[in-house]
């Protein structure tokens, strides 16, 4: 009697499981149109600030493309681009990007916007770097006082910039005080805040997270600290599977007057100042002047 009831329960369960399987596999499969999708490989900073959440829906509505935003470190974004695994890139590591341009992996590279990197640290400032004009000097003081420093450690644009500053100083950081997070910008800032450590961050991500952090801006304004974003298409002549029209549409979209206007006001309502400065059509050499 009991056994019969259990087996009927199990039968019902089995039938309902199978029908769920059929239903879900159907709807899951029907969700992926092949030609309309554009894969955008970008940095964590554009995603973590929420800028792309504002821009992507406008682009999709305007053009009918479906954007797959893959937010990774700039190193990975560039690697995806150089393998033809993405259609369009939005990155902030100019010298690495130029290598891809020279190798013919990407084309149509255009300046979009900039903000700047800043050195943030605990309000107590144990290394005494507050107000220094040179980022390299500040790094030098942090290293010589062995104050904790959290590095992105993920080959991102920010990490590349950090290595550039260490390189200028001629020091290769090493020791217990130098913490390699291997994480995105948001998480790296959290770690620095928890460990009362210094770190190098883009201003946008810092401003958008400031309320959750116990970190202050200590060094800013050095020319080496400019953070410049370019958008570029993966070369369709080299990679035949790339969605070239979609990528081109996205590049044109990012440098269009409408988007540049949105970028210039993005974040003002929330943080009192914009997170990025629009630069379409300008020369890189003129930035920060």
């Amino acid at each position: 009697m009991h056994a019969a009831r259990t087996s009927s329960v199990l039968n019902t369960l089995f039938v309902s499981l199978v029908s769920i399987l059929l239903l879900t596999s159907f709807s899951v499969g029907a969700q992926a149109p092949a030609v309309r999708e554009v894969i955008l490989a970008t940095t964590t900073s554009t995603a973590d600030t929420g800028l792309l959440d504002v821009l992507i829906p406008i682009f999709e509505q305007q053009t009918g493309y479906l954007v797959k935003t893959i937010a990774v470190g700039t190193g990975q974004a560039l690697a995806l681009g150089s393998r033809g695994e993405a259609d369009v890139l939005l990155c902030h590591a100019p010298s690495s990007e130029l290598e891809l341009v020279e190798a013919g992996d990407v084309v149509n590279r255009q300046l979009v916007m900039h903000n700047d990197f800043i050195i943030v640290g605990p309000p107590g400032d144990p290394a005494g770097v507050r107000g220094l004009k040179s980022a390299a000097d500040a790094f030098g003081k942090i290293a010589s006082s062995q104050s904790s420093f959290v590095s992105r450690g993920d080959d991102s644009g920010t990490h590349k910039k950090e290595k550039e500053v260490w390189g200028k100083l001629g020091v290769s950081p090493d020791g217990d005080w130098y913490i390699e997070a291997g994480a995105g910008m948001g998480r790296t800032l959290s770690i620095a805040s928890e460990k009362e450590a210094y770190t190098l961050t883009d201003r946008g991500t810092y401003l958008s997270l400031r309320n959750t952090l116990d970190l202050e801006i200590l060094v800013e304004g050095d020319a080496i600290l400019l953070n410049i974003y370019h958008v570029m298409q993966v070369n369709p002549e080299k990679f035949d599977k790339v969605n070239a029209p979609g990528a081109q549409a996205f590049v044109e979209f990012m440098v269009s007057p409408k988007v540049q206007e949105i970028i210039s006001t993005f974040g003002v309502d929330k943080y009192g100042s914009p997170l990025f400065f629009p630069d379409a059509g300008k020369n890189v050499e003129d930035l920060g002047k």
Partner: protein
Amino acid sequence: MDLIVEGITRAFWLLVKGDREVFRIALLTLKVSGTATLISLAIGVPLGTVLALARFRGRTAVASLINTGMGLPPVVVGLWVSIMLWRYGPLGHLRLLYTPTAMVIAQTLIALPIVTGLTMSGIGQLDEGIRVQVLSLGATRLQLVWLLVREARLAILAAVIAGFGRAVSEIGASMMVGGNVVGQTRVLTTATSMEVSRGNFGTAIALSLVLMGISLCITAFLTHLQQKGRSST
């Protein structure tokens, strides 16, 4: 402390107001992990049964392979599935990367060894005497297998619970093969991780509570079935 209160309050309001984005993320989570669990069930139970009953050369090797697979790191699965599904990878023409289907494939590979392994040990534990007895009563081989599977149903339900739990809780593979694309491949684990990196700890806590709620409901339902099954034997 205030963060925890904020998170719980936020979770409460997100659920009460029926936030569409959270609802969509939760639904996709259920679809992807549910489908992956069902596929692993469809493959894992027969496979586990065969491995428990059949005697062939290399059976122990296969069994150890499956037991090792039970601890397969999701990020390793994610990497390999990504490489296979890349545009210029062996299965690139299918255009599956960054789709829910890719996530189902990855989660199936993660849950399958667990379902197979637990089924195998569940059936293997049954008294050898039953088999002799049933066969001597004139049952066909198929009837024997069906009977053994029924006898091991408690263990098989445990396999379902464990398989679903692993699929729904993993993040490494979903992040890699899904890409956490909003509205398309964002599930509860990847959304939670993203909200943490954006500093929205309240929303992250809310999402984590939704995830734990879903796991609890489904596990409770399955456990209920399991315990009912037990009382009737």
